[in-house]
């Protein structure tokens, strides 16, 4: 393993080399410090019930843990970041499998889990060709695994659910891990996660302020056209400015391309949210689990990130490329 690779994987001393990382980390910490004050003001001035107040504090406490779980691995090194993304993939797949009932199909679930483990290895090894090959290979294995109970009844359902689970929580989220193979992965990942969360907040606020026309009332009755457009208008320039500093002096660093990236992130992020709303509405559920107090499940919290990861990865990869100049097949050699 080269010195550069070791520094990327475990070099926490480089945590604050990039000023975007410093700004985003400080912003996140400041928001966490300011939030209690805002909660007190909101609950004292408004007529909020004690139940609403408890929910706000639950959300705040959960955000402290979430922020630590996001920030610490990213700052600590690419190795820990990739492991954190793999953990997120497993937790998301677990919730998906439990709400759809796929978890009772042990063979298919085992294949998906092994597929995610292998994807994680391919990312850690910076072996992109294996990462690409694992999607069709795992799909083929799921199709074979679905034959195992020798029960054709329900074959399409269990195999279809298995493939969708692996595609979303293995392959799609895996792109987030792949970004960690870039030397400058810290600001990239922090900027994407920050922008996706802001996008959700902007959609919520704009929906309340200007939302009159329902967007997709059957899928998500609270989403409005005003909220969706407001999120695009606010997220896009903010993200483009951050991206300008991250990818400065590269082929991506033109106003049109940066704004294009911002628009893609905002639109796809909102579609990720709607995708999970559709899944939950189809199953008649409100939340995917109660793992995170005040938020619901891991999927409820990170739904917008699932589709954003491959969209942003391939957009940036087209113009700039990820992991340029980094050692490949680190462990395999």
């Amino acid at each position, binding site marked *: 393993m080269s010195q550069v690779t070791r520094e990327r994987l475990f070099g926490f001393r480089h945590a604050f080399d990039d000023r975007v990382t410093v700004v985003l980390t400080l912003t996140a910490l400041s928001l966490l410090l300011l939030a209690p004050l805002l909660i007190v003001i909101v609950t004292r001035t408004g007529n909020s019930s004690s139940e609403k107040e408890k929910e706000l504090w639950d959300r705040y406490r959960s955000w402290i843990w979430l922020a630590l779980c996001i920030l610490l691995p990213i700052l600590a090194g690419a190795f820990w970041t990739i492991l954190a993304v793999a953990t997120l993939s497993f937790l998301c797949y677990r919730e998906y499998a*439990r*709400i759809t009932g796929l*978890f009772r199909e042990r063979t298919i*679930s085992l294949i998906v*889990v092994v597929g995610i483990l292998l994807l994680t290895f391919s990312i850690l090894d910076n072996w992109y060709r294996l990462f690409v090959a694992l999607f069709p290979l795992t799909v083929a294995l799921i199709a074979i695994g679905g034959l195992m109970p020798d029960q054709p009844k329900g074959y399409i359902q*269990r195999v279809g659910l298995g493939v969708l689970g692996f595609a979303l929580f293995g392959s799609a989220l895996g792109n987030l891990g792949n970004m960690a193979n870039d030397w400058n992965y810290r600001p990239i990942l922090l900027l994407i996660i920050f922008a996706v969360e802001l996008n959700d907040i902007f959609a919520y606020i704009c929906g309340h302020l200007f939302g009159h026309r329902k967007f997709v009332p059957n899928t998500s009755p609270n989403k409005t056209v005003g909220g969706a457009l407001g999120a695009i208008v606010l997220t896009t320039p903010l993200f483009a400015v951050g991206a300008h500093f991250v990818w400065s002096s590269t082929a991506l660093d033109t106003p049109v391309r940066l704004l294009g990236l911002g628009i893609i992130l905002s639109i796809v992020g909102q579609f990720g949210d709607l995708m999970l709303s559709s899944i939950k509405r189809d*199953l008649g559920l409100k939340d995917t689990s109660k*793992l995170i*107090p005040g938020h619901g499940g891991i999927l409820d919290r990170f739904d917008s990130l699932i589709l954003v990861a491959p969209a942003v990865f391939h957009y940036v990869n087209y113009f700039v490329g990820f992991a340029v100049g980094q050692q490949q097949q680190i462990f395999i050699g």
Partner: protein
Amino acid sequence: MQPWNLQPAHDTGLTPNERFRSVRRESGLLESLAHQVCFSLLRTYFAVAHRLSIVGRDKLPAHGPFVLAANHCSHLDALALGASLPPHHRDRAFPIAAGDVFFQTKMTSTFSAIMLNALPMWRKNCGPHALADLRRKLQEEKAIFIIFPEGGRSRNGSMMRFKHGLGMLVAGTDVPVVPCGLVGTFEALPPERGFPRPVSIKVLVGDIQRPHRLIAGRCER
């Protein structure tokens, strides 16, 4: 095409702590692995430390649902019965444990659920609903329940009068009951002892009893 038949986990919507204490709990891949590892280790422990012998294992039904009912005089009883089951039964085996002992704190309920796959029976407020939930789980999930009909551990090793729980659970169903005798667990770990003695333990599996002659009356009231 087959109508959609996959259903969300029965424990969907419960917090992790509620889930561990719920009879609606369904194990996933990791938990199933934990049960297998735990009972395999227990099997090894009982074989080495207690020279565990099982008489009449061929009398066990090939698949669930069924109930293992045994005498109870030691904390080793449920573990010995669980370890006596063949590996393909272990994931569906649920020792029914006293809620006020094994599910009182977060730590004990997590351990009891993840490692032992135990389900709680709240002795002080075990109403018809709790039994109905257990009966539903037994039948729908083709489960194997490990039950001690005396309702608690005998303090002197001799068998006590049976409580009504077992009869109320299986009355009106065709779930077979397999009576089991545990010999040596009281000598190995009586209620007042903290650590077991290396005494040999024997599990005697009896003939299957069919409860269809019991009338589902008492449990419905």
